[in-house]
């Protein structure tokens, strides 16, 4: 049975990962992928993402113009392929710089 501490940690862990997920998705989609393989790739890098989080996120990023997508047939099935747009690339660079700054600050702050 999970304790209250476990629940608090789980909430904070999810909050911490949520912000990084966009950066991970944008970076991964520099090469074209469809949802299922994208999730696998992220999982391979240790970033397990729930399908119910990933697909709505992809749609939101596409609406914001950061991704482009197209339906294409592969292995006799229609799949929706996503790719980083030019605008997405620009935002990715900015987010990466921001993440590096945060990472550097946090590394100094949390090191014992």
């Amino acid at each position, binding site marked *: 049975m999970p304790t209250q501490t476990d629940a608090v940690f789980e909430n904070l862990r999810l909050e911490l990962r949520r912000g990084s997920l966009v950066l991970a998705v944008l970076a991964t989609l520099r090469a074209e992928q469809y949802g299922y393989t994208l999730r696998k790739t992220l999982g391979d890098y240790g970033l397990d993402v729930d399908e*119910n989080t990933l697909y709505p996120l992809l*749609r939101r990023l596409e609406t914001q113009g950061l991704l482009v997508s197209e339906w294409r047939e592969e292995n006799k099935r229609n799949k*929706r392929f996503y790719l980083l747009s030019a605008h997405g690339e620009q935002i990715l660079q900015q987010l990466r710089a921001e993440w590096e700054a945060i990472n550097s600050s946090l590394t100094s702050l949390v090191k014992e």
Partner: protein
Amino acid sequence: METLQRYLHAIEFWLPKAQRKDIIAELSEDLHSQIEEQQDQFGHKMSDAELDALLKQRGNPLLVANRYLPQQSLIGPVLFPLYKFVLKIWALCWLTPAAVLVVLVKHTQHPELPWTSTMSLTIGWLWTAVFVAIGTITLAFVVLERVEAKTHFLENWNPRKLPPVRDPNKISRASSAIEAVFNSAAAVLLVCYTSSLAIWDSSGVRIHLTSVWLYFVWGLAFLSLLNTALSTANFVRPYWSTVRSIIRFAIDTAGTILVCWLLKAHVVRSFWASGLSEAKALDTANTINIWLERSFPYAVVAGLVILGIDLYRVLRVTRDRSPHLNHGTVTVSSL
């Protein structure tokens, strides 16, 4: 695979119309990929139980669809605390007094009914009023929420217009002065003009009271003098202290007991008016006593409200003076 179709159909129902087909096609593709992968892993066709487990792991259709919908709420997190606060104030300042008043009025109208029946009559009346009031408040906040979303009026604020910090233990000197004058005048008037059993003898009307009245008058006059002394002390040292707040509580308790006792004591001994038969006069005296007795619950409720406020003050002052709490800006004087 019929279960899968039913699952996708259930999700589709809740999705925004424009994106429905697209989202379902993508979800369907993802689920098929997952099924294929599992079948490769297990080395056999997926059974119904395994498919059920997969879909259960995916989540309730409503929850899955919900992730694709924009976050929406009748009253958002910004205005919700204000909404809750308004409901609490409404319950405290309107609902509770109204409920008590209706119970009392219904009891006065039907004194033969037991209190439980009177209360159930009140609940019937209150039910509609509560629904209408909560509905109106909610509707007002829904409108406010929409206006806030469009105009962001909450961001337009001025720090200089914030309300001043109020010290609840500070006593206004003006109110202390008014209290002192009023109580001393009441004590004088009670003793000079009402300390006789023949309380009224003018214009052909005579009212005589029982000896209970004298105890009441002298008791009330004494309490008025005590209140005058307390108000004077409050005027000189305008912060509630534990001792003075307890004295106020004690005076009000005694006052409430005195008034309630008078109402029950059948204080009118005789009533006489020119041209009124003896039987009719006796009847009038009885009627006055009955109505005084019927107003007893009102006096009890009013007394309890006053004592509740007094008690809250005692607790607040005691808590604020606790050495564990640091109220740097508050100066508390003792008696």
